[in-house]
């Protein structure tokens, strides 16, 4: 006996389906549930049957659809076995039988269009769009307002959001049955393509509409808009990987232009540190921080730097990474597979699926997936694509006496084999999502995979990247785990994922454009402060993220290091050259990382607010060095400037926390400095003041507020 308690998500999807509010992504979710699980299918049939019976029975009580020319008084048939109501079809059939077959056929046939028209009129206002109220709730949109100069945009946006409405107004006489639909494919429209690629105001407006709708649905109020000082710090950390300087904060706060946030993002996207930040992020994802095996991190970083510098399409970058050949020196992208081809290419298989597709395949290595319909053979047919490539030692071209390690294709003759749980050996053929891949001319298996992965207008690869980027900026993904978008994973805002994915693909996988859309969206503008109106919106407690506030993120080790350098201006203390600083940085990072020798080449990042990390921060060489009262450091500059003590305190607060000190802080620090100075006069007093500022600097750098992105 099926029970809806066993299918909580299924029943919610069916409710959306019944009320014609289901998105195409949710529909896919429903389909996969119903397909994979016989109990779910049974429940679907029973629930739809209940819906249909209610529809049928109540519809029967009204005669408004019945054709006038048929006389229904002559009800000759015996009572129906079904207990409720009399349907119009039953009546129609009985009457027509009485009048003879000719009439029956003609009435049935010619009555149809009339019914259609009649229903159209009755429903005209409701049928247009499954969610027309979404537009009306947001008359003045943040972004639309901030770009008033784009004449056509503000008009193009709302209309485009509602393609079926456009059809209606254009052609009021249209009796197209398509209008009478539960599932208008929302993105399947003929919108002007230039609108999306320009500023993307319509994309942002759509995202905002959907999110506001979900806030309404969940009866929560979003947090207020973030203060400029809060926002600017977040924007810097997320985009370029470090905090802004005190001067940059002041300049941004003083800027009076309405679109200064969008402008700042554009500036940051062109910053050198944008390239550095995203190179770090993806190098860490691709090969980890611990660099255990002979992995050429420098070469991979070079490849990533070039990719982000040129803002290459993400599909191209992924294709290069998974189909790389040669040595890392020739091709930096080769570092990824060289790091993961150990253990029968199992890590390469699992990590590729996890990073680029946000799919968790590793447990299907040994058995069929317990919660979804992923099967063991899928893992191994995916895996067999990577069996084609091997790490080989070959003589160097310039000096044949020396060997070099390189990725090279080996011909696969026939299938690869794996063992099932009951000990059977099974064959696996190269496949991706059910499509067999065969080498074709120049193109090897991995090239074929890369092509398949980016096929279509919303492939999973793009979806996965959107989920990751959203997570990076908003602090939570659309799924509970960012890298698990499998069939069983619930997506909090499927329409948003869907739209962003399609637009991202349409933009040619333009990473910077995606960042613009995300950073211009309303949730990114919000404060991280929880209000009484949205206490429930807390993904940390296991609730679905609703993005009604900016979730607080912890800085990564790299962000801490780079931010310390910005705050203390102590770069020179670590070395005179860029390489020396990088070397210092990588040494410093190693303290926080521990590698595990698992199948998936896992590692842990210990920078999690734990005690060892706190001690490392408080007593570490880095902080001590940067706080020295040496020439060139920020502290030295501030301490020896001709400002009042209050101005100096403010400068320290701005440099570390990107905000002015609170009145309480100010009072406490004044007292601290007074205590330091005591009865001292002249240079002694000056030194005492500096010591006080040093304490303050130390306290700020070791505060939670410093290592959090809020």
């Amino acid at each position, binding site marked *: *006996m099926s029970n809806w308690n066993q299918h909580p998500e299924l029943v919610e999807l069916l409710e959306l389906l019944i009320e014609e509010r289901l998105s195409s992504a949710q529909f896919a979710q429903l389909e996969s549930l119903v397909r994979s699980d016989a109990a779910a*299918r049974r429940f679907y049939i029973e629930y739809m*049957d209940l819906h*249909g019976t209610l529809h049928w029975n109540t519809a029967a009580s*009204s005669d408004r659809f019945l054709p006038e020319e048929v006389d229904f008084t002559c009800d000759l048939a015996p009572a129906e*076995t079904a207990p409720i109501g009399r349907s119009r079809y039953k009546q129609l059939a009985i009457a027509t039988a009485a009048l003879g077959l000719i009439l029956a056929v003609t009435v049935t046939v010619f009555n149809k269009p009339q019914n259609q028209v009649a229903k159209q009129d*009755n429903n005209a206002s409701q049928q247009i769009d499954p969610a027309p109220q979404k537009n009306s709730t947001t008359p003045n949109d943040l972004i639309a307002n901030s770009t008033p100069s784009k004449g056509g945009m503000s008009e193009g946006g709302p209309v485009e959001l509602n393609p079926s409405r456009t059809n209606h107004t254009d052609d009021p006489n249209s009796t197209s049955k398509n209008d009478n639909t539960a599932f208008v494919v929302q993105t399947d429209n003929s919108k002007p393509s230039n609108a999306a690629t320009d500023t993307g105001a319509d994309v942002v407006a759509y995202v905002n509409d959907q999110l506001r709708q979900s806030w309404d649905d969940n009866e929560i109020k979003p947090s207020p808009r973030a203060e400029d000082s809060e926002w600017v710090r977040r924007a810097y950390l997320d985009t370029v990987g470090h905090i802004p300087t005190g001067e940059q904060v002041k300049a941004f706060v003083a800027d009076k232009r309405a679109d200064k946030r969008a402008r700042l993002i554009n500036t940051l996207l062109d910053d050198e540190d944008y390239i550095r930040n995203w190179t770090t992020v993806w190098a860490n994802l691709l090969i980890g921080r611990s660099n255990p095996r002979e992995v050429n991190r420098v070469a991979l970083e070079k490849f990533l730097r070039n990719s982000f510098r040129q803002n290459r399409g993400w599909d191209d970058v992924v294709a290069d990474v998974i189909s790389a050949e040669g040595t890392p020196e020739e091709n930096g992208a080769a570092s990824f597979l060289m790091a993961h081809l150990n253990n029968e290419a199992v890590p390469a298989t699992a990590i590729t699926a996890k990073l680029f597709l946000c799919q968790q395949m590793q447990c299907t290595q040994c058995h069929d997936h317990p919660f979804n319909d992923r099967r063991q053979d899928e893992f191994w047919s995916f895996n067999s694509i990577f069996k084609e490539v091997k790490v080989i030692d070959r003589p160097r071209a310039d000096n044949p006496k020396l060997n070099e390690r390189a990725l090279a294709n080996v011909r696969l003759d026939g299938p690869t084999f794996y063992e099932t749980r009951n000990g059977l050996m099974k064959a696996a053929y190269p496949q991706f999502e059910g499509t067999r891949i065969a080498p074709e001319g120049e193109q090897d298996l991995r090239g074929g995979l890369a092509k398949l992965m980016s096929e279509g207008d919303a492939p999973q690869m793009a979806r996965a990247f959107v989920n990751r980027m959203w997570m990076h900026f908003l602090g939570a993904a659309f799924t509970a785990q960012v890298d698990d978008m499998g069939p069983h994973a619930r997506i909090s805002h499927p329409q948003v994922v869907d739209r962003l994915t399609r637009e991202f693909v349409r933009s040619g996988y333009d990473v910077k454009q995606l960042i613009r859309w995300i950073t211009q969206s309303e949730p990114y503008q919000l404060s991280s402060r929880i209000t009484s109106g949205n206490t429930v919106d807390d993904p940390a407690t296991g609730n679905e993220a609703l993005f009604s506030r900016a979730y607080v993120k912890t800085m990564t080790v790299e962000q801490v290091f780079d931010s310390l350098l910005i705050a203390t201006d102590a770069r020179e203390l670590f070395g005179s050259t860029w390489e020396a600083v990088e070397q210092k940085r990588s040494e410093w990072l190693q303290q926080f990382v521990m590698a595990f020798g698992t199948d998936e080449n896992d590692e842990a990042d210990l920078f999690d607010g734990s005690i060892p990390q706190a001690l490392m921060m408080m007593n570490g060489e880095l902080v001590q060095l940067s706080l020295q009262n040496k020439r060139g450091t920020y502290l030295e500059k501030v301490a020896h400037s001709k400002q009042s003590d209050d101005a100096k305190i403010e400068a320290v607060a701005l440099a570390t926390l990107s905000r002015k000190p609170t009145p309480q802080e100010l009072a406490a620090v004044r007292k601290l400095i007074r205590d330091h100075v005591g009865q001292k006069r002249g240079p002694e007093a000056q030194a005492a003041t500096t010591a006080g500022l040093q304490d303050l600097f130390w306290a700020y750098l070791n505060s939670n507020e410093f290592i959090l992105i809020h």
Partner: protein
Amino acid sequence: MSSVPDTKVVRAVPTEEFVQLFSRSQRRLFLHILAQVSNPADAEEILQDTNVVIWSKFEQFQQGTNFIAWSFQIANFEVLKFRDKRRSSRLFFTDELCDVIAREAESMHDDLDLRRAALNECLQKLRPQDRELIENRYAPGNKGKGVAEDVGRPINSVYQSFGRIRKTLYECVSRRLKPSVR
């Protein structure tokens, strides 16, 4: 719409038994179609197409054989045709899944009939305001938005109520069926 085209020559008139079978099968046919296309408006349209075929083929029906099975077959074919026609504008289950659902729904046929009967009793047991709300929802041509306007409540709270009432009904129906199933 004004001129009725020339009528065809009639070769035979369906028997009374056929008419009875036909009229009794309508709701089952509708629900059978609905399971495959999930949208009542679509299901009604397909039902009408199916009816036309059933009437035009009544001579092929052999009395004494299973009328429901015969008409389900016709309906399944009409569902396929409809899906092909509307594929670009709707989301449908894959053909394969649709086929599985059609077969399973047919095998659950007796059970579903019992559920439909039980539903009527469960409707009577609803709180009056709930019954009124759900009847309002299913009134011909009505939808969530119309109901929300009628009762002056926010649309989302009305959707919530529909869901709650349908779940209540579903549970009630399942409870009532338990003794006869076990």
